[in-house]
């Protein structure tokens, strides 16, 4: 047998061996899958979820209505594997202060969202010089959003402590937003709260600006992709573009996405399961959870809710552990970007759910990008950035011995 024969036979046999070993299974570890449908969906519900999933992963083309200015051409590219976003596709919003003290979205200058990409021949936007507040937002993770939407308004109000009656320094408050008309009829829970001036509870978005997932989906489609719907029926534009181009837009008649598909996309968001927990039997994780509660993290990152009666029975009366209280909190000057929307002040942020935190890196390319703008790349950095109402809790964390801090981090990574 010649050397060439031996070498070539060896290479091919090694290939066959590798192939044989690898071909056994392609199934991912269920504990590593961040996004999946609710386990108890019936076949019809599952079909609707799957249809929405397909739309979520669909890449839209210019002929289908992308643009004329946009950030991405598919929902997926801001939420890889259903997870948190990556800085390359961050959302940028801007605004400025009116003489009357109101914060303006600068609609006439194509605000509040910057669409920094554009279809061919159309100029991409730039932040206007007049903008006083600019914020970068890292897209959120998607699992369990429908469960958060099914929490009752009453339960959210019950946790609020605007006047700090318990004197613990934590004063979470409910975001009350003025919803657009199209939101009416799109709520999935009963006993919707209305203030005297018609405002309702804001739940979604970093500043709790959106009242429900239907609004969130419609806004994301038009602001991120430039895809119009009957709800948000005007394409984004660049105010500096020539008038003829502005009038032509993307050349596709509005609305660009049928109502049925907007509903399917919304249902996909509503029917995603809570992320899987891992390492539940690990003593460090168990001890870390106790520490998490003892030092007060749980005061904002509320560990348990029970969803209310929903018009979607699959979301009704379920006990969930999202680690958020859905309230706005003052997070201090370090996290104040001078920008706001809805009811929130510039230094206020809605408590983000912590579930899925341990799988965040696996949807962000191996590096975690935490906090609203992805500025922290480790959980410890994220904790250290907490200020305002969380200052004393951060102090409690910093006073822990290193071993206990590690246990708390282990717990967070198990979520």
């Amino acid at each position, binding site marked *: 047998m010649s050397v060439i*024969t031996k070498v070539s*036979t060896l290479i091919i046999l090694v290939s066959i061996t590798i*192939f044989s070993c690898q071909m056994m299974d392609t199934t991912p570890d269920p504990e590593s899958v961040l996004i999946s449908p609710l386990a108890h969906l019936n076949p019809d519900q599952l079909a609707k979820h799957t249809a929405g999933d397909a739309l979520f992963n669909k*890449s839209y083309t210019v002929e289908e209505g992308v643009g004329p200015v946009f950030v991405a051409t*598919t929902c997926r590219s801001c939420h890889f594997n259903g997870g948190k976003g990556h*800085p*390359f596709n961050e959302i940028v919003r801007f605004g400025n202060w009116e003489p009357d003290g109101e914060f303006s979205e600068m609609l006439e200058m194509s605000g509040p969202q910057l669409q920094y990409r554009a279809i*061919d021949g159309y100029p991409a936007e730039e932040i206007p010089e007049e903008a006083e507040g600019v914020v970068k937002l890292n897209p959120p993770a998607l699992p369990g959003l429908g469960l958060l939407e099914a929490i009752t308004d009453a339960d959210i109000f019950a946790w609020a402590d605007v006047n700090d009656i318990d004197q613990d320094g934590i004063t979470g408050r409910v975001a009350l937003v003025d919803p657009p008309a199209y939101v009416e009829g799109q709520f999935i829970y009963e006993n919707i709260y209305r203030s005297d001036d018609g405002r309702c509870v804001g739940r979604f978005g970093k500043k709790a600006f959106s009242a429900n997932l239907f609004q969130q989906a419609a806004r994301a489609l038009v602001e991120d992709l430039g895809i119009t719907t009957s709800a948000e029926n005007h394409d984004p534009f660049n105010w500096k573009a020539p008038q003829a181009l502005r009038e032509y837009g993307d050349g596709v008649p509005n609305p660009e996405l049928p109502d049925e598909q907007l509903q399917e996309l919304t249902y996909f968001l509503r029917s995603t399961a809570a992320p899987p927990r891992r390492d539940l039997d690990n003593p460090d994780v168990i001890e870390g959870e106790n520490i998490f509660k003892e030092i007060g993290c749980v005061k904002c990152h509320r560990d348990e809710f029970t969803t209310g009666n929903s018009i979607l029975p699959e979301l009704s009366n379920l006990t969930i552990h999202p680690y958020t209280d859905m309230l706005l909190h003052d997070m201090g000057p370090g996290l104040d970007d001078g920008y706001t929307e809805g009811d929130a002040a510039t230094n206020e942020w809605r408590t983000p759910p912590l579930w899925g935190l341990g799988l965040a890196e696996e949807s962000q390319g*191996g*590096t975690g990008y935490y906090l609203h703008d992805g500025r922290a790349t480790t959980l410890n950095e994220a904790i250290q950035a907490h200020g305002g109402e969380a200052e004393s809790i951060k102090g409690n964390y910093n006073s822990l011995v290193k071993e206990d801090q590690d246990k708390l981090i282990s717990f967070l990574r198990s979520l």
Partner: protein
Amino acid sequence: MIKSDIKYSKNLPLIFLVAVFLCVSLLATAQKNEDLQNEMKPQKEVLFDRYLYKIGSSNYIGGYAHGSLNRFETEGISDGFNVTVPSIGAIVQSNIGQLLRFYAEGEYNSIDKKFQVNNLLIDFSNSPKFGIRIGYYNLPLGFYNQKSIKAHYNFLDDPLISTLVLPGPYSDAAFGIYGILGGEKSIVQLKYQFNVVEGLNEQILYTPSSNTEMQLGKNDDLFFDDNNNLPMYNGRIAFYQKDVFEIGASMLAGAYSNISSDSEPDTIRNLYSGVFDVQLYLGKLKIQSESALNIIHLPGSMDELYADKQYGTFVDLSYELFNLPHQYKRYLQHSLSIAARYDFVDLHVGYFDKTYEQISNEYYKASVGLVYRPREQSAVILNGNYQWFYDLLGNPAKKTMGIEFGFASYF
């Protein structure tokens, strides 16, 4: 995760297997006819390297097909076994006098459910050293692009670069020259081919995958309006010694962006695609490899979202385990080979501006094959492959496993 298997007749695989062997057996029997065998000898030039039946004194016809029984599984989800016959092609060639040849090759693609023309050309050649051709024809962008008929190959699927990085199989309206310099007794011959072609269009950017796709820039229609009134240029040169080696370099370059008549002229943007290919014959071992690089000028705001550089490569090793002794080849040419192929494709070469992390969007694939050839023109192929796909951010790979059993043959 949804796991579903498409229900199919339990007898379908059996029927398919019987059909394959009957088909191959019939072909093998038919080709025992010595006269016919002589008439089906392949011709030298790559484009005309097909097996055809001679009709009359100067006309040839033929056809080819491939099909398979296959099962693919991605992330634990499979739609079960499928029988596919992706393409059936027909070829007609007519020699007009000593110098002119008319050649037409069409293919029904069952995946797209449409008939497509691969070649429709007139060729003028007075000697192997120089020829001229005009029409709509397959272009030499890499070696595999012109030899993609599966009967020539050891795998039922294409190398990843040929469809993901390159627009293969790529045919286009073109005018060109070609030839082989150096006689058959020379140590090394030089093959050359240069074409002026219609070119790809800006649909390479506006794609359902949200990434640059050369494949989608091909024009669907045989005769169509040019998108920008500018040609692309294509060519390949190769050093060649028969049955020893062939080393070639090819390219496609030119403007792809549209110029629309009803508005301001868009900026002209170019693309450059280069391919380096190698084939070595070391006794019973054959090595085939290609590497391709695309460079695309993007509109400014498309940075990062779409790729301005793409790269891919594959290496294919095949080794002949068994071949009938020479004295029997007059009657039968049974051979059995094993093969392995490695594919790597980076559909987005570069780094994220904000994080300096490497942009991923990469495919890795390992394939193995067992190939039985009753004759040179026919093959029964068993393939297995395993693929890893890393998304733009390089998150944990999405894995796909496939197994295919099928045939590929001229008829």
